[in-house]
């Protein structure tokens, strides 16, 4: 009997731990028309755990910071905002499920994961409930009104912009031949390479070889062998992948003596990557992303930094947090102007442009996909430290 008790105890423990990860989860019964009194619930279907957690957790910090700021300024028409996140666990089925639960709890909008594959299902649930769903930095062009519905947005530029900006940057740097490595993990990694290659070839560049690998099954030896077997040394390497394999691949390539410049997208914007590469390998790497931690790049950053530091007691590390902050600011502005009706909020978001920490943002209407018109911040790595080079919008934008 005693052993059975212990076994039950272990199961309870596991269950408890799994539930703990659904931070702030207090599911309520009676889902029809929940009256939340004097507060407005912003639902979060973001990932605390799993591979997407590394992008969502900084964004969530930005969300909470913005919520605190909006509330300190009196909330929305006297109602306080409450952010309620349920861990979507980097799993699409869970994302849909938690979004539905949040809708049941009376959420007026849903903030999804920063990715189409992981965040899209939550946006669909928001669409079904007739409320706005928005992702802080999902950049796949699939994340828009065409695939998800007329009340769904991403605050991020699309990969069309992200790929095109880096193609123009590389070509402008005198690069003519490329070795492209694509992680076939999610639509983000695949479509980013696709748009990059399209733009680079349109400019007159040549892709010597396109290699593919799968996140979690990285075979650096094979990729390095393919690189070395190329008919000529390429001017640069374009890698579209995700942490942690992204870091391993760059480090292994550098260790193997491959010192060609490396270009990539916003997945590079991770302090863990800079630290991993360090002074030895952290050079000659370029990427574009959503923002940069400096007043020079982002007017108002110093104020943001001070507020962030006061709330969390540490420096801003990943710029992803600013995207989370922006999401709440955009939602609050819409709610202040037109109330919490999903259709009205979506219309307001389509019709206006927003000055964000991640740059000026202007969405197209629902018929053209809620395409975000936004600039990309370009960075490079010098001795393991990221350096801001400037904002850019591409001259040629590929069709999504």
């Amino acid at each position, binding site marked *: 009997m005693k052993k059975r008790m212990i076994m039950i105890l272990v199961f309870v*423990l596991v269950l408890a731990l*799994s539930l703990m990860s659904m931070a702030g989860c207090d599911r309520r019964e009676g889902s029809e028309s929940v009256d939340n009194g004097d507060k407005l619930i912003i639902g979060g279907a973001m990932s605390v755990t*799993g591979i997407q957690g590394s992008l969502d957790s900084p964004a969530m910090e930005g969300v909470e910071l913005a919520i605190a700021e909006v509330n300190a300024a009196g909330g929305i028409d006297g109602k306080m905002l409450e952010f309620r996140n349920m861990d979507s666990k980097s799993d699409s089925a869970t994302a849909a499920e938690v979004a539905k639960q949040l809708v049941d709890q009376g959420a007026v909008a849903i903030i999804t994961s920063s990715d189409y594959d992981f965040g899209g299902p939550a946006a669909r649930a928001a669409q079904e409930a007739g409320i706005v769903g928005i992702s802080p930095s999902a950049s796949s062009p699939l994340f828009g009104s065409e695939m998800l519905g007329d009340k769904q947005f991403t605050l991020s530029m699309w990969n069309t912009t992200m790929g095109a900006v880096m193609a123009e940057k590389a070509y402008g740097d005198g690069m003519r031949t490329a070795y492209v490595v694509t992680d076939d993990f999610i639509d983000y990694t695949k479509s980013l390479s696709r748009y990059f290659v399209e733009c680079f070839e349109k400019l007159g560049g040549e892709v010597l070889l396109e290699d593919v690998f799968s996140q979690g099954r990285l*075979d650096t030896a094979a990729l390095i062998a393919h690189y070395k077997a190329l008919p000529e040394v390429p001017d640069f390497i374009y890698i579209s992948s995700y942490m*942690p394999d992204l870091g391993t691949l760059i480090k292994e390539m550098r260790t193997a*003596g491959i010192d060609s410049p490396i270009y990539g997208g916003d997945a590079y914007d991770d302090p863990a990557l800079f630290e991993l590469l360090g002074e030895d390998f952290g050079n000659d790497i370029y990427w574009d992303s959503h923002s940069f931690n400096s007043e020079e790049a982002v007017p108002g950053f110093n104020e943001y930094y001070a507020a962030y530091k006061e709330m969390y007691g540490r420096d801003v590390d990943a710029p992803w947090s600013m995207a989370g902050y922006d999401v709440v600011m955009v939602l609050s502005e819409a709610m202040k102007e037109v109330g919490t009706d999903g259709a009205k909020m979506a219309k307001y978001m389509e019709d206006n442009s927003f000055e964000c920490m991640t740059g000026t943002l202007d969405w197209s209407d629902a018929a053209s996909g809620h395409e975000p018109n936004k600039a990309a911040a370009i960075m490079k790595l010098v001795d393991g430290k990221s350096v801001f080079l400037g904002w850019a919008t591409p001259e040629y934008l590929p069709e999504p």
Partner: protein
Amino acid sequence: MSANIFIEFVINVLSMGSLYALIALGLVFVYGICNLVNFAYGEFITVSAYVLYFVGTFTDLPWWLVFLIAIGSGALTGFLSELIAFRPFRGRSLDALLVTSFAVSIILQRSFQLGISPRSRAVPVPDFFNINVSLLGVVTPLRNMLLIGTTIILLIAVLILMRRTSLGIAMRGASENFVTARLMGVPANLVISIAFVISGILAGVVAIFWSARTGSVEPMMGSGPLLIGFISVVIGGMQSLVGAVVGGYVYAFIANMLSLTLPSSLLSFRDAIMFVIVIAFLVLKPEGLIRGKYQEERVG
């Protein structure tokens, strides 16, 4: 195949194979004694990798001491998990033990995610790990050579332990027939504890070389080596330590061979092909390349 590519291939197989052999050995040590497929083994590796990260980043201790502490933490994790989680279920059904190992794995993973961070952390490694050395005209990181050397030393140590010490003889006895060994006076608790500790030590060594390659640690990192360990033991044989080592090298050979010969477009199917080979082994040669002496079901 040019000479350089061949030498590079051999070095890759030997270094990767060494790592895989160590991973597989850690799994088989526990399986051999308790008949338990320990799904928490990957998390033993993750614990050591996190210790490497914390001690290496936040203290100024010399690298060898950091390594020793990391290996020690692996051993401690092995010891404690056996004491707290597995011992209460010993003698019950194997399913209970299996489920327990899942539970330990999930508890540890979730603890890393919630207690540390879901984001990856850069693990500092001593500079000499990344120095390139030239061997017969092929440039390779020094850590590959260190890995091969370390594995040889560890394998010899395990060999001496198992062949020359009374503890080793007791363990071999226990792994061949646990009930009889107990009747002969082999202390069950001690033998099983030691098996978990050795498994933990191997996990610690694996953590050093695995994170030196990837450069980072994150909560789910254990699943990669765990899968490799399983495949290696399926190929080599679940019942024998030699089989685990052979399995590790064979796996590395097949994986590298596929990497070298598959065209880019098929490269992402490499693992699918590996799994087909594993299934073939399970169907055609379920006992693996090396047969253990006793194949019957044991009761722990």
